């Protein structure tokens, strides 16, 4: 705590304006280099062989024929990636997920890999690898996996968090419970109680750039990795641990990243590429095909959720209970726990309880996907609130406002909220012209709220001033959505110079201290904080140099509007020294001028949003069309509003895709039926209207500018906003997402047949 409060009310010169991004020209001309765009002398093509079975014992892998094929330089299996994890189960899971060890745990699980001189040879070599499988019973559905009769995927999993501790393994990795108050007493007070069960299907982040890397390992253990990632420092540490490399000897460069949304926070093929390169002693480029991205990397959980809420006739919610069952794929995760933390976070409910069940199934290991776990819980809770509102005859928005969380509300996960913006977003929604716009036939409107945490984390930033006064800002947080422009703006703001005078770059892992992932909406929050402090550090040096140039005590120098000003008695007639003038003399006043900052950027704020959705439902086909959509979200402080709006719009669109059509479809054989963009249906341009946005700014007091992360919250409300709109358009309450045409038509038929 203890940041400079005055910045909260500060007048800004640069921050808050819409500047163009520094990487724009490279990206519109095709010059920008992404994961698959690097090459190295003598590089090989890497390819991965994947399991065609949902669950199978691997009896034998014969690679002899592949190894003999001319042009093949290395073939690796788990034997080439020995377990060096030393009892760290989390790391061991990552290793096993990268390469199957004796068992294939899902359709698409890597079982072997080759590196060859070209694409054709590598493809041929994969066909020559002979794997003998013994199929095992599988389970892909979260509810089925919890049954006693389900095949147990890991003998080592004994449910955590239940008493007495189980003595038999199961697919239930953990039970989590959160909340406070007495829910039974709360329900006894209620005039109306609603109980519903929901299901959501598994979705993928769907970044357009497949995973890609270029790995090169030398015989002396030095290595380089060029990779599309949300966090190259974390990738470095994980890959070094898995491969037994020294952290300082593995140089990881983050390429431009073609979308991540959480899916590029985890290593998949990178350790395999390094193992292939080590064995071949040549650089190896490993690029996934789209089908591999769907089958072999981490989507989000599919879920099954029960919600029970009770309210008085005046709209007060007296009790709320959620039971949340989330599958984490073939390895245990904390996804249901996150759901417990977020389910009721928008509201002040005196008696609330969330129970989470983290479950393993024969599907790919779940990865974070934008506000991981929150959208599904919000779908269930926000849908139930609309049902409750209808039952007590109140407008849904008024029920939400009646129970909204505020500063001082105790969050369901324990702590008391500081200043938060959920009430502001709801009031802005209520006053928005969208809420009064006329609806046509078969159209309906829905509102829903959403919450996601922000996280901070380790951050390190350098700021170097050239002799011409231009500034290099060196960052370690990967720029996923335009953050370089925001960071350059912050540096310019602090230094008091034009935006164009600052150039922001992302450093490789040998050029800067450790930085955590760009995840949890932390990029602008934490690197922004480090940039502020690095700039202030540099200003200290600039003032010293100016003092030297003038020959006055440094205490008599202040920094104003990009220049040093002498303030002490008798210095009144000294003309100010600009940053450029001080920089030009730096060689003679003590050498290069730089600022630096290492910080654990803790104290991140909370992200809240409320969305309005108008949908038109074709009652004869069940097809839903989004006709209007508005996002209202608290950004704390929008550094570059263009990119804040972009996050709002992009998140809303991903949520809309999830609400309407996106889903993993598994066959009875446990194989993924739709590993491609043709049948995994993300929204296309013609599916959508313009997405209106309103940025609210309720400052986060623990950030120098009041910034809150904005990257994730916007995916949380859409499922329920769409579901509530469909309920009002077609008169059917959808409890299974995606609310695809067949599901909506079936619901309409069911209602009609019920009379």
């Amino acid at each position, binding site marked *: 705590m203890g940041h400079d409060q005055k910045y909260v009310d500060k007048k800004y010169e640069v921050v808050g304006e819409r500047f163009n991004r520094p990487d724009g020209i490279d990206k519109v001309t095709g010059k920008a280099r992404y994961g698959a765009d690097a090459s190295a002398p003598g590089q090989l093509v890497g390819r991965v062989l994947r399991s065609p079975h949902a669950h199978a014992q691997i009896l034998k892998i014969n690679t002899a024929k592949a190894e003999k094929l001319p042009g093949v330089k290395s073939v690796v299996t788990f034997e080439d990636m020995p377990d060096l994890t030393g009892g760290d189960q989390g790391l061991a899971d990552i290793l096993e997920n990268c390469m199957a060890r004796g068992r294939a745990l899902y359709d698409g699980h890597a079982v072997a890999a080759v590196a060859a001189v070209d694409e054709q040879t590598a493809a041929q070599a994969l066909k020559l690898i002979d794997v003998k499988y013994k199929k095992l019973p599988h389970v892909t559905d979260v509810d089925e996996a919890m049954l006693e009769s389900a095949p147990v995927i890991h003998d080592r999993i004994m449910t955590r968090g239940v008493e007495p501790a189980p003595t038999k393994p199961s697919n239930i990795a953990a039970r989590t419970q959160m909340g406070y108050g007495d829910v039974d007493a709360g329900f006894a007070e209620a005039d109306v109680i609603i109980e519903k069960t929901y299901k959501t299907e598994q979705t993928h982040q769907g970044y357009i750039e497949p995973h890609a890397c270029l790995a090169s390992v030398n015989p002396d253990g030095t290595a380089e990795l060029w990779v599309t990632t949300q966090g190259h420092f974390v990738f470095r540490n994980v890959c070094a641990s898995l491969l037994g490399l020294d952290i300082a000897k593995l140089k990881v460069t983050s390429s431009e990243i073609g979308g991540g949304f959480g899916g590029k926070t985890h290593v998949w093929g990178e350790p395999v590429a390094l193992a292939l390169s080590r064995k071949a002693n040549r650089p190896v480029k490993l690029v996934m*095909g789209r089908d591999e991205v769907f089958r072999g990397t981490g989507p989000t959980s599919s879920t099954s959720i029960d919600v029970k809420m009770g309210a008085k006739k005046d709209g007060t919610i007296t009790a709320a209970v959620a039971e949340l069952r989330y599958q984490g794929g073939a390895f245990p995760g904390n996804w249901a726990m996150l759901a417990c933390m977020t389910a009721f976070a928008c509201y002040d409910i005196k008696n609330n309880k969330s129970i989470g069940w983290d479950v393993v199934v024969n599907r790919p290991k779940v990865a974070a996907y934008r506000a991981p776990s929150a959208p599904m819980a919000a779908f269930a809770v926000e849908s139930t609130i609309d049902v409750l509102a209808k039952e007590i005859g109140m407008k849904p928005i008024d029920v939400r406002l009646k129970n909204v969380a505020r500063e001082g509300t105790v969050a369901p996960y324990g702590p008391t909220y500081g200043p938060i913006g959920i009430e502001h977003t709801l009031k802005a929604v209520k006053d928005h012209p969208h809420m009064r716009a006329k609806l046509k036939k078969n159209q309906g409107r829905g509102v829903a709220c959403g919450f996601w945490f922000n996280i901070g984390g380790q951050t390190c930033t350098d700021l170097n001033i050239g002799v011409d006064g231009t500034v290099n800002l060196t960052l370690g947080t990967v720029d996923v959505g335009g953050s370089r422009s925001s960071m350059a703006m912050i540096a310019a703001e602090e230094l008091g110079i034009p935006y164009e005078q600052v150039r922001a770059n992302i450093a490789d892992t040998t050029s800067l201290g450790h930085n955590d992932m760009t995840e949890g909406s932390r990029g602008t929050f934490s690197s922004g904080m480090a940039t502020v402090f690095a700039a202030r550090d540099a200003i200290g040096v600039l003032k010293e140099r100016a003092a030297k140039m003038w020959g006055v005590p440094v205490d008599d120098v202040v920094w104003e509007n990009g220049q040093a000003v002498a303030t002490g008695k008798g210095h009144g007639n000294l003309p100010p020294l600009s940053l450029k003038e001080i920089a030009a003399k730096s060689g003679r006043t003590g050498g290069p001028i730089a600022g630096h900052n290492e910080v654990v950027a803790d104290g991140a704020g909370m992200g809240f949003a409320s969305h309005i959705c108008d949908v038109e439902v074709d009652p004869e*086909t069940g097809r839903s069309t989004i006709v209007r959509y508005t996002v209202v979200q608290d950004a704390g402080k929008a550094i570059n509003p263009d990119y804040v709006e972009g996050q709002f719009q992009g998140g809303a669109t991903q949520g809309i895709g999830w609400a309407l059509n996106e889903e993993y479809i598994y066959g009875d054989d446990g194989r993924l*039926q739709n590993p491609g963009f043709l049948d995994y249906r993300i929204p*296309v341009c*013609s599916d959508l209207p313009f997405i209106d946005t309103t940025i609210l700014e309720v400052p986060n007091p623990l950030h120098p500018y009041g910034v809150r992360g904005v990257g994730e919250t916007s995916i949380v409300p859409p499922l329920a906003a769409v579901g509530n709109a469909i309920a009002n358009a077609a008169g059917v309450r959808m409890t299974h997402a995606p609310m*695809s045409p067949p599901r909506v038509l079936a619901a309409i038929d069911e209602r009609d047949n019920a009379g």
Partner: protein
Amino acid sequence: MRYATPASAKEAAGLLSKETGAAFLLAGGTDLLVKLKMGMVEPDLVVDIKRIPKIDEIQTSAKGFTIGAAVSGSVIGEHKALKAAWPGVVEAANLIGSDQIQGRATLAGNLCNASPAADSVPAMIAAGAKAVIVGPQKKRTVAVEKVVLGPGQTCLTKGEVIEAITLPKPEPRTGDAYLRFIPRTEMDIAVVGVAISLKLERGVVKKAKVVLGAVAPTAVVVAAGAKALVGSKLDDAALDKLAAACSAACNPINDKRGTVEYRTRVAGVLAKRAAKIAFPRAGGAL
């Protein structure tokens, strides 16, 4: 893989018939290259017909239209006379994929791929289209509805190549339409497709052809649906009968794109809507 660019359909047929390995014809390539990428085919020979003179042209004559086997969807979409004569066929051709796919995809390719969900096939059948098939020895003309035998299977024998699709000159007071259902607005494969062609006499349906796609192993000509419309002015009773006939004619599968119930139900819904588009095109007053 060898790659050949013959100068005539006959030469193409000769190359294909002589090939002992796996041979494939390449026109727009929108299906073949996907199969190549996914490792579903491993050709020894690919015969690219796009260098054959005039194979990328639409010829108009007194009898109707001859659409070369390499004419892309975007060329079809810009052909004013064809659009005026057979708007339903043009709509169907233009529904195949994005603008990018339209730059390559062809009617002949859509037919030869023999997918049950092909958009242009029901529309071509409803319009009475024929395929001009060139073999190493002889040429034959086959009605489009006889070309596809099952999923991925056609009546083409080894060495045979579709050189062109012909469409008759429409009779007076004829109108056609094609509608399909997809979950998104673009970029999907039809869950159900319905093509309807109507000929009117004094405002009443005299002749009709109703064809469904994506609800059976091949496109289905629904005679009962046509019968429901003949003699009507497209009143509600006739439309209901049409819908019932179409639903009854469905023999679909459950798959990732749709369920049996859904396809069956929506076939009837779309049939009504397609009829209502075709009717005014034939000069009828709704």
